[in-house]
């Protein structure tokens, strides 16, 4: 099914990688927010950067009664409002929009899929897309099973005339181990694993990819990347916004499902994995799965020791009231859903045994910031008598993912003229070192899928292994007493219990 990249002699020495084969991307749920806010702006920018071939087409599939023209207008508005390169350039947009089409159907109507097959064949003929297709599930997850089944029934899981067919599945991929397994079974009854691309947009971020470059393209970090040198690791993904208009969805999900199961677990595996034997989809994912298998599960009975939950409450900032989580639209007034979670993980491997990995994520925190901090051990003995031992801070290597992508290293330095040691940082910022704007995560991921590279997508065993670590925590929480929610004010760094949780281990959260 996968295409082999044949040698194109004109490619040698060009900095941009090869362009994918012309194909049609069918977006299910094309009238939704994701399509106009993220997907089409990403595709337009790829076209703008000359990364897409002539003939590339998009076919929107949704229930609303839209025309091709109305679809194009709506997407143009989406690009104008959301593209990182600013409003669309009219002539370039006109050329790109010639390949945008809309197909109206409900997701459960077999004739709609026959119609889809006919439209795809027509696009193949008109735009030379060679039977190559990407199906993108951008619908609410309840519709996934229906669409997958209908695609199979209509024979759209295989391409005509030697082309390829791939399917991208948006998050959330299940809500527990059981539902993730069921979704995998439904997918794999129709598609081969090689055709399936489970998206986690965190992996499309440049700094996230840079974790592997930092670790495996430098010789100075890897020798100290283990239990002998690392005291602990902190991974933070903080959001300053509340749940906004996602209240209904979020209330049935919570921070553990929404952030920890996917994004933070991905960051954890990239930091902790062994060097892969090659930089390709299976070698990298094999190593990530090994980390997941080595993570010690938190038994339902142990959740109180290894996890902290929080939910934000109303507060007034400078006289302006900020709504609490339970006041948000779509949220139950007595909701027990966590908007903040912190947990401690151990990895039972030779490299990491005994090193705690602290993960925290929350909504309505003071800043939007994501980072991974590797905290090294302190020096074994104090050489400089004038400085009290506890004044020496441990070295910290912080990998900042957003908003200012970069890497900082903290180390002790002498204060000029005094017998004093003060921590200073070496700072590397993406923005200032490379005068180029990083592409959006979706640009990278959509292009990779079209090129048939699954390295930055989640494999079946990976998604199931990560749910297997999450579900027992939910079970433990559900069997315990209700929480005294809300327990932190919007705009603070989470519940007091989270600080006590670290203090029990003699550690503290980094001030971000």
């Amino acid at each position, binding site marked *: 099914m996968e*295409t082999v990249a*044949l040698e*194109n*002699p*004109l*490619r*040698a*020495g*060009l*900095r*941009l990688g*090869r*362009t*994918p*084969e*012309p194909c049609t991307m069918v977006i299910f749920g094309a009238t939704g927010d994701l399509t106009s806010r993220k997907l089409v702006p990403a595709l337009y920018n790829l*076209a*703008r*950067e*000359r990364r897409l*071939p*002539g*003939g590339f087409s998009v076919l929107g599939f949704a229930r609303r009664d839209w025309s091709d023209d109305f679809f194009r207008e709506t997407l143009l508005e989406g690009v104008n409002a959301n593209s990182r390169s600013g409003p669309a*350039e009219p*002539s*370039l947009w*006109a*050329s*790109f929009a010639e390949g945008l089409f809309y197909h109206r159907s409900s997701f459960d109507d077999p004739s709609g899929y026959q119609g889809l097959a006919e439209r795809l064949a027509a696009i193949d*003929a*008109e*735009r*030379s897309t*060679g039977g190559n297709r990407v199906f993108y599930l951008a619908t609410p997850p309840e519709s996934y099973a229906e669409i997958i089944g209908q695609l199979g029934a209509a024979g759209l899981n295989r391409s005509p005339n030697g082309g390829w067919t791939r399917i991208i599945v948006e998050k959330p991929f299940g809500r527990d181990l059981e539902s993730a397994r069921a979704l995998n079974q439904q997918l794999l009854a129709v598609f081969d694993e090689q055709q399936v691309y489970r998206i986690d947009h965190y992996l499309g971020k440049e700094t996230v990819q840079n974790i592997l470059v930092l670790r495996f393209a430098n010789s100075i970090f890897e020798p100290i990347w283990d239990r002998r040198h690392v005291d602990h690791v902190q991974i933070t993904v903080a959001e300053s916004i509340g749940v906004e208009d996602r209240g209904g969805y979020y209330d049935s999900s919570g921070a553990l499902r929404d952030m920890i199961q996917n994004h933070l677990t991905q960051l954890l595996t990239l930091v902790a994995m062994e060097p892969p034997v090659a930089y390709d989809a299976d070698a990298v994912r094999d190593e990530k799965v090994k980390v997941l298998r080595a993570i010690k599960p938190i038994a339902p009975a142990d959740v109180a020791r290894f996890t902290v939950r929080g939910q934000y409450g109303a507060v007034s900032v400078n006289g302006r009231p900020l709504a609490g989580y339970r006041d948000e639209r779509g949220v139950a007034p007595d909701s027990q859903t966590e908007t903040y979670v912190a947990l401690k993980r151990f990895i039972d491997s030779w490299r990491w045994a005994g090193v705690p990995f602290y993960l925290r994520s929350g909504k309505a925190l003071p800043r939007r910031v994501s980072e991974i901090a590797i905290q090294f051990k302190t020096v074994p003995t104090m050489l400089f008598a004038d400085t009290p031992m506890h004044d020496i801070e441990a070295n910290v290597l912080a990998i900042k993912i957003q908003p200012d992508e970069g890497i900082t290293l903290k180390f002790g330095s002498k204060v000029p003229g005094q017998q004093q040691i003060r921590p200073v940082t070496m*700072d590397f910022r993406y923005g*200032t*070192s*490379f*005068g*180029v704007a990083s592409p959006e995560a979706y640009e990278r991921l959509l292009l990779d899928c079209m090129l048939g590279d699954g390295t930055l997508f989640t494999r079946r065993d990976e998604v199931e292994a990560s749910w297997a670590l999450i579900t027992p925590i939910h079970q433990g929480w559900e069997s315990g007493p209700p929480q005294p929610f809300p327990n932190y004010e919007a705009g603070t760094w989470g519940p007091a219990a989270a600080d006590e949780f670290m203090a029990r281990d003699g550690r503290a959260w980094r001030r971000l």
Partner: protein
Amino acid sequence: MTTLPSVDISTIERELGQLWKENAAEAGGQAVTRALTLNLVARASDSATAEAISGVVQGLTASHPNRTVLASLRPDDAEPRLDAFVQANCLLGSRGAPQVCGEQITIDARGPAMAQVASLVLPLLVPDLPVVLWLPGPAPFADPLLGRLRGVIDRLIVDSRSFADPARELSEMARFEAADHVGPGNGPHAPALSDLAWAELTPWRELAAQFFDTRVLLPHLRRMDRVEIDYAPQAGRANVAQSLLLAGWLASCLGWTPLEDALSQEGGTLRLHLRRPAVNVGPSAIRLVTVELRAVPATAGRAGIAALHMRALDGVTADFSVELAAEEGMALTTAQVAGMTPVRRLARCERQSEGELLAAELRLLSRDRTFGAALRAAGVFAGRLG
């Protein structure tokens, strides 16, 4: 005997140190990063060029903060004079305070004092950083500064778009790349070479290469019979160097070799005759390729390459073309194969400033082998032309 003026190196360094202190004070406690990634030595033969170079160098700070040593030469002045100035080139942070800074030393040399410039440049280079020599304008290979610095520099950057005698200078450039003469800076330590005219070809190469990333179109690449390259005058004069490089690139990538009688010329059109490797077995498999370089009027006032057509005429006809569109900064690409619907699209092919081209070439850390191969092929054509 005239006493030549002199400039004191340690004074220059002291002035630079002072400049950094002032910058730090201006930044109001915020860290100012002196981030130097390379030494850039540039030569200007008149004040307009010197100003243009200063402008380009300031723009480079964002991507390649560097120490620039600008040799501003006035050979025609009778009075020997030698002056030096220092300045910091800073990228402003969010609050308007300098954040990342590079530095520039301008050496103003007039008349006979010019001979001293090379000896001044050497001690001003920051140790352990690559040295790049940028010689804009015609006749870079005859430049005395290149002669003096050849053993020191890691990369030489020229611009064949400004060559006065394109064919002859392109041959010279090919010889330089091959480093086929004796002296320091040859062999494995020969400086790498960059040509801004080649850098300007990047979007053309990308757009041409993209057709053949598609499986069904790739086989046609080996079947090309005819290539046409249209080019518009550079600064009012026809300059075939860049089109020869583009033709040389296709020839080197596809293994086309020039025939004995490789060249014919007719008015503003130059034809190159080549042999392409066999696609199938048998005598009929060996075929000839004609590459036609045509001087045309500029599209929307844009100099340089205006169109590239690649055609297979024998058997299934196939036609691949990239041509500047009426819309500013855009090119129209068309793939037309008999029996298939033609595929057209508009793609960006923006005009790039000298600074952007320079920055792109500075991103290269090693020798550009694709350029080397293209230049060698172009040098063969140019040699026969001259």
